[in-house]
């Protein structure tokens, strides 16, 4: 029966361990599990270990609850796991890793867009008035 068990175990060519989000929950109700898995596995498939969770919808107190098992996270990072971009951003927000540069860039882009939306309406409303 040992031959059967080794046939059942999936074997990949290449691939590495990643720490990423696995989506669960129901329709219109997402829920992410922070998971250490092989990179070639399905997003919601078999994982090596669950390291935490994130609820993207705010609760009654207006907070988005996230749990992180820092000790196991450090273990997997020590084993050479890589992080997905949203996982890196979340850990940057948490303070475990330094802030991700894309978070900073995203903030700047948002601010520039907000300034652009605020300035041209005042400029465009002044233009037609002057023309008329």
């Amino acid at each position: 029966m040992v031959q059967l068990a080794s046939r059942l175990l999936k074997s990949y060519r290449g691939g590495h361990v990643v720490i990423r989000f696995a989506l669960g929950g129901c329709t219109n109700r997402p829920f992410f599990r922070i998971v250490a898995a092989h990179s070639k596995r399905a997003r919601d498939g078999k994982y090596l270990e669950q390291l935490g969770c994130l609820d993207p919808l705010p609760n009654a107190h207006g907070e988005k609850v996230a749990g992180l098992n820092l000790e196991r996270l450090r273990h997997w990072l020590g084993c050479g796991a890589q992080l997905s971009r949203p996982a890196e951003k979340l850990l940057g927000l948490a303070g475990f890793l330094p802030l991700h540069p894309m978070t900073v860039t995203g903030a700047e882009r948002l601010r520039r867009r907000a300034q652009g939306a605020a300035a041209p309406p005042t400029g465009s409303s002044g233009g037609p008035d002057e023309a008329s």
Partner: protein
Amino acid sequence: MTGLNLQKVFRPVKTELKPPKYKLMTEAQLEEATRKATEEAKEKLRMPPVLDEREPIDDILAEDKFLEGTETTKYVFTDLTYSIPHRERFIVVREPSGVLRKASWEERDRMIQIFFPKEGRRVIPPVIFKDEHLVTVFQQDRHEDILNMCIAQFEPDSPDYIRVHHRTYDDIEKHAKYDLLRSTRHFGGMVWYLVNRKKTDGLLIDMLHRDLLDDATSLITLYHMLYPECQSAKEAKEGKLQGVGLIKVFVKTESQKEGYIQLALQAYQEAMATSTAL
């Protein structure tokens, strides 16, 4: 034709009553069983800790002003490592303004209850602990139940725990319902609260009415241990008084309801005299 008696339909359901088990024991085994029962009772009667109110946490770990405007809600991050005690767990909040701060005590308690649930504790504290509802509880004489619920729900050093306990003790002292807590683990806490605020008269009268002289003397010894500079303590130490003498000295110097206590003392001494005469 069945009839509808709501009282009967919705009466509280009793759990299955097991028939009493009879064991045949020798004298020695009976003593052993009573000894074990007293030990278990002592364990159950151990006083819960009385602590000062905890200091609020406000510690900022990082300020990132440029994150302002990206998020609309705050993120609460909890460290889920299994082997850390709950007091040392890292629980951190990232505000929409970009400030990374440590979570306040209420947020900490909520998060710890969400991820590591404890039996008897709710995530959001029940409404019964609010002052207007505590009044209803006290009218029903259920002080012990509310104190047990309070111990299950709150940490000993949280302001809510202390507030509920103080309210309960005040109500008991106002209506002289000391007997409600007599053989429970809350009695010690109540005595400590009353002695700290010097409101021991009612309790003393109650003890004398129930002929508990040893309890009365221990109460006064505790009072002297806490306030060694007061007059009655000095007199007691000089005279090395015991029993009724100690109470008389205490009554003369410290109490407000002198008349009542003198009356109670007289009644007690008459009762003692008649019982010894018989």
